[in-house]
């Protein structure tokens, strides 16, 4: 058991998961496996240059293993080479680093996420008997300058293509900003009206914006809207029946896996790999799509959120319906 410094570099603030789930999970696992190790946490606020600074800085602070969720997957290649040149191990986290082989890759599959939410929506539409030739879906992607958003977008494209429904219009939301998504969706509502049969939104924030747009246009019921991240706000909307699905990514699992790998690397062991992606030994976790039907099972029963967190105020009624206590 060698103690050492491990750095955990996260990319942005677009959702709270990094500070609410990933880092605490990582930290907890590290404390368990290697109580004497130092863990450095940094968040790059979606700024590539800042991430580079943070990367350099943790090297100066003597990090031996760096867990990197790159702001820009391709630009991160140079960081990996820089670190490897000094004998520092890099674990690609959440987003792959295709340009340069990292020492390990653990993730939920972003493209898979996109595909999953889209497919889930498609299936829902089919079940409801919505004809494929009438109307179509809106697609709200993430930030045009965010590489992860690009992966999700590709996945959504795949999912929709498989479902056979048309896409009416598509939008890259600058900065993932919900108000922008809302504004855009409002425009599409005046444009297409009842032709909109559903919305594939790349995360819960933009999905929430789309729901707000439908509500504001007085459309009832709101067509099914997807999400991703399983934020409390989104879970509540699902409970209330306003949002169709989201993705539960209990990031703690991935974070714990990363911690495991990191400790092994510190000890000079070679961690086992389930598969190889981008030439990198990898471990991928499959996220679960959460809808009203399986919310209790996926979220409450797995202890990701408690009923007390979700069932506040007006959501209590929906909770009762779903049997959440």
């Amino acid at each position, binding site marked *: 058991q060698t103690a050492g410094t491990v750095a955990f570099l996260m990319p942005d603030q677009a959702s709270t998961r990094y500070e609410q789930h990933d880092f605490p999970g990582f930290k907890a696992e590290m404390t368990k496996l290697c109580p004497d190790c130092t863990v450095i946490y940094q968040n790059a606020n979606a700024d590539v240059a800042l991430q580079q600074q943070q990367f350099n800085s943790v090297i100066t602070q003597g990090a031996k293993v760096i867990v990197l969720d790159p702001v820009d997957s391709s630009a991160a290649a140079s960081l990996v080479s820089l670190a490897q040149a000094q004998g520092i191990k890099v674990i690609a986290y959440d987003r792959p680093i295709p340009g340069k082989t990292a020492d390990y890759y653990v993730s939920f599959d972003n493209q898979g996420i996109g595909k999953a939410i889209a497919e889930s929506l498609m299936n829902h539409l089919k079940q409801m008997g919505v004809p494929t030739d009438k109307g179509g879906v809106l697609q709200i992607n993430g930030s045009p300058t965010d590489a992860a958003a690009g992966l999700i977008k590709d996945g959504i494209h795949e999912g929709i293509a498989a479902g056979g429904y048309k896409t009416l219009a598509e939008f890259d939301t600058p900065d993932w900003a*919900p108000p922008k998504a*809302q*504004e855009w969706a409002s425009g599409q509502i*005046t*444009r297409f009206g009842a032709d909109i049969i559903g919305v594939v939104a790349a995360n819960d924030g933009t999905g929430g914006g789309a729901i707000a747009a439908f*509500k504001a246009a007085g459309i009832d019921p709101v067509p099914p809207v997807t999400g991703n991240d399983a934020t409390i*706000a989104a879970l*509540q909307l699902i409970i209330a029946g306003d949002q169709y699905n989201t993705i539960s990514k209990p990031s703690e699992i991935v974070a714990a896996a990363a911690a495991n790998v990191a400790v092994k690397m510190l000890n000079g062991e070679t961690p086992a790999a389930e598969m190889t992606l981008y030439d990198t030994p990898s471990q991928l976790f499959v996220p679960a799509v959460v809808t009203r039907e399986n919310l209790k099972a996926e979220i409450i029963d797995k202890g990701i959120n408690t009923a007390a967190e979700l069932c506040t*105020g007006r959501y209590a009624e929906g909770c009762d319906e779903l049997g959440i206590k």
Partner: protein
Amino acid sequence: MSNDIPVAKPAPTQLDRSDVRVSHATGISGAVGSFFNRVKSGDLGSLPVVVGLLIIWSVFTSLNPVFLSANNLVNLLFDCSTVGVIALGIVCVLMLGEIDLSVGSMSGVGSALIGVLWVNQGVPLPLAIAAAVTMGAIVGAIYASLRTRLGMPSFVSTLSGLLALLGLQLYMLGSTGSINLPYGSGMVNFGQLMIMPAWVSYLLALLPGLVILYTGLRAMDQRRNANLTPGSTGGLVLKASAIAAGLVGIVFYLNTGRGVPWMFGLFVGLVVVMNYALTRTKWGRSMTAVGGNAEAARRAGISVRRIYISAFMLCSMFAALGGVLSSARLASASQQAGTGDVNLNAIAAAVIGGTSLFGGRGNAWSALLGIIVIQSIANGLTLLNLSSSLRYMITGGVLAIAVIVDSLARQSRVSHGRA
């Protein structure tokens, strides 16, 4: 000759008609003529921006007729209101030649406070709103004292504020990320659905014309009594009825769709109040004076410090209020609220509407006009299927075009020696 009669002899002509060099317009034709003269010499106030707006509108309508549909315009008005209120605050600081880069974060903090206090803590809504606005007042007061006591440029202090407030916003929302405001609550309805009854909207549309007519006639009367030229009654009636007719027409059209949003009504109401305050009160006069020449204002006995405090406080308070409104509009207090281009949009709205970045020139209407220009572009582009790269390029181009008309008009004013 040795008798010292004051030179102001009982004026045979009206006081302001004594100079032979000034040409005066009389009657309706005169009013119309002097209007065209002003057009020619470029002395047009907000007209060029309106022309720019009309150009944008026609282009977008020709690309997608949905743009001019009543319901789309109603959406536009809803969207204008939130950033518009922020821009109104920006006008106050720009009037002094200062800037506030933190309005975005401030609005984010405002919306976070609503989420945390009202939704999570169960504080009554009015108290939560009051808390948000008070928070704005405090922040504004801090900026003002950094500016007046330490002479710190507002660019730097508000940049620090931007970061600090953003941190505060993240901190408040940290555990949950974003907080849903309950759909169906009055607050969310106000931000999304509440429309004026038709009769109220018509009444409000008529009001400006009537007020203009009434105050105009009263001023004429006073001026006549005071031996000043009263101006043309015909021109006044023409102006008042043109405004009334225009507004009623717009309201009629909006009422063929969903109607006029109360939220927009609130925004316009704030603009009117600020316009009154800036143009018709001693405070507004002092604001303009300090913005034009702070030293001269100081020497005239104006408390420059108090003016700064009021401007910065108003700005941050409006920003907080804008945040409250945007949380209502989005039905959510999110971590992204107020980030991105809210700052730039709010400042750009004020500038596009004609408020100078260098102080001393500006008016409350510029917030309204400017934000309509910006939101029209954004809204018009949502109706076209464009890739992000094209969308950005076109937004840039259209924005430039909207302002070119104004710039050309101003240019002609300069070349006519009325800079």
